[in-house]
C-alpha cells in the first residue's frame, strides 16, 4: 500500500504499515469495529477500509487495485476472483446471513409469512436477481413455490431497506443483519424457507498483496474469536 500512505497523511512519526481491506458494503459496521479494535492492539498498523458493492470490489481488484484483503458478501463473486487468479490460496468462509422479511414497524400490510408478499395489493420490493441478495430471494421463492411480483427490483439490499424504512414499500426481503442494524426503522418477520438460501461470506488474501503479513493478521482476526463475536453481535450467522 505504498502510494496511498502518503496521501493518507499519517501524522505518526513511526512508519506505519498500512493494510488495505476491500469489503462488501454490508460489512461496514462490523469491519470498522474490528479494525478499530485491532489498531488498538497493534499501534503500528494502519487499516484502510474500502467498502463497495461486491461486484465493484471484483472489478476494482481485477483492474489492479492495491488491496491486501478482500471480503465478499457471497461465494459467487469470490469465485470470480479465484477463477481470475486474484486470490492467494483458498478463500475462507467467515460468516453467513439469511434472508428475512423487512416491514415498516407498523406493518401496514399485515405481513406474517412469505406468502403474504405475493398477495395482490402488497407492495413488495426485492433485489434484482443479478445481485447477490436477489439471487437468494429467487431461491427462497422457488423453495416456497411462490411467484412474487415486486413493484421494484432494487440494485442493492440497502435500496430495499430504504424503500421499506420510508414506508414506500410494504415489505421487502433483506438480510437479518440489515434489520438488526436498522435501529428500529424496520421490523423483521422471519420465515422458514430462509434456510434454503444461506448467503456465505468469504474472505481471502489478494495475490501480490503489498502487505501480505498485515493482511494475514486482519484475516485471522476476522476468522478468530474476537471477529466472530463482533459478527455474531451484528446478527451474522456462523459460516
Amino acid at each position, binding site marked *: 500500500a505504498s502510494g496511498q500512505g502518503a496521501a493518507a497523511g499519517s501524522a505518526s512519526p513511526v512508519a506505519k504499515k498500512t493494510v488495505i481491506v476491500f469489503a462488501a458494503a454490508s460489512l461496514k459496521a462490523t469491519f470498522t469495529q474490528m479494525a478499530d479494535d485491532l489498531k488498538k492492539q497493534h499501534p503500528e498498523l494502519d487499516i484502510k477500509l474500502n467498502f463497495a458493492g461486491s461486484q465493484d470490489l471484483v472489478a476494482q481488484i481485477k483492474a489492479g487495485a492495491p488491496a491486501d484483503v478482500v471480503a465478499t458478501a457471497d461465494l459467487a463473486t469470490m469465485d470470480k476472483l479465484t477463477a481470475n487468479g486474484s486470490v492467494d490460496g483458498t478463500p475462507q468462509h467467515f460468516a453467513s446471513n439469511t434472508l428475512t422479511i423487512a416491514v415498516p414497524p407498523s406493518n401496514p400490510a399485515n405481513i406474517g409469512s412469505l406468502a403474504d408478499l405475493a398477495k395482490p395489493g402488497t407492495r413488495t420490493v426485492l433485489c434484482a436477481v443479478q445481485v447477490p441478495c436477489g439471487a437468494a430471494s429467487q431461491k427462497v421463492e422457488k423453495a416456497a413455490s411462490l411467484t412474487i411480483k415486486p*413493484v421494484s427490483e432494487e440494485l442493492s439490499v440497502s435500496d430495499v431497506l*430504504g*424503500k421499506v424504512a420510508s414506508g414506500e414499500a410494504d415489505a421487502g426481503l433483506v438480510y437479518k443483519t440489515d434489520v438488526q442494524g436498522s435501529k428500529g426503522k424496520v421490523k423483521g418477520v422471519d420465515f422458514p424457507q430462509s434456510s434454503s438460501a444461506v448467503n456465505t461470506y468469504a474472505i481471502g488474501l489478494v495475490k501480490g498483496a503489498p502487505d501480505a503479513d498485515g493482511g494475514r493478521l486482519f484475516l485471522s482476526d476476522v476468522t478468530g474469536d474476537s471477529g466472530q463475536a463482533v459478527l455474531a453481535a451484528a446478527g451474522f450467522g456462523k459460516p
Partner: protein
Amino acid sequence: MLGVALLGLAFILVPLLATALRVDWAHFVPLVTDPAALEALGLSLRTAGLSTLVCLLLGVPLAAVLSRAEFPGKRLMRSLVLLPLVVPPVVGGLALLYAFGRFGLLGAPLHALGVEISFSTTAVVLAQAFVSLPYLVLSVEGSLSTTEAGYERVAATLGASPAATWWRVTLPLALPGLLSGTVLAFARCLGEFGATLTFAGNLEGVTRTLPLDIYLVRETDPDSAAALALLLVAVAVLVVGAAHGPWLKPRIRGNAV
C-alpha cells in the same frame, strides 16, 4: 491552445475508447438488440423527453426571472437553483422520497387523493427533472443575460407587450442557449441513475431505464455492460449532434470590426 484543447478532448475520449476496446464486438449486435435492452432504451428516451419538457416548463420562467427581474434575494435564489447539482443523486432520490413518497410531505396528501408517484414512470420523470433542472436554468439564464436588453426595450417602444416581447424577441435571441440547455438537460436525464434508483425503483418496462439496466448487467457481465454503455453514448452523440445543428452557428456579426 489547440494542443491543450486536444488534450482535454483526449481526456474525455480515451476512457470511452478504452471501454470500446473491451467490448466483445461479435456479441454487440445481439446484446444491444436484446428486447430488455431495447425496452430500457425506449423507456430512457421517453422519460428523458418528458423530463426535459418539465425542465423547460419550469426552468425557462425561472431563468427569465433570474436574468431580468430585480429583487432582493435573487442571489440566494440563484444558489438554491444549483442545489440538485451538488446533492449526490442518491441523496436527491431520498429527498424526493421524503417529499413525494407515500408518507412524504406532499406525497401523503397526494396519496390521500389517490395519486401514487413512487415506483411509477412519473417518479422516473420527477427524479430526472430534479437532477437536470439546474443545467437548463443556468444555460438559459446565461444566454438571456448576455442578450442585449436593448432589444427588449426597442420592442416595447414599438408597442409590444412584455408577453409579446418575450415570445417575439427575447426567446428567439436566446435560442442558442435554450437549445444547448435543453440538450444538456436531456443528456443528464438520459444518464440519470442514482436518484431514479432511490426514488423510482427498478422495474422492467416501468422504471428500469438504460443506466439502471447497465448497472444490473454489469453485476453479472461487465463487458456487456460496457457495450450497453456504448449504446447509450451513441444515442447521446446522435441527439446532441442533431441539436447542435447549423441553426446554432453563431451569426457573423457586425460589419467592419
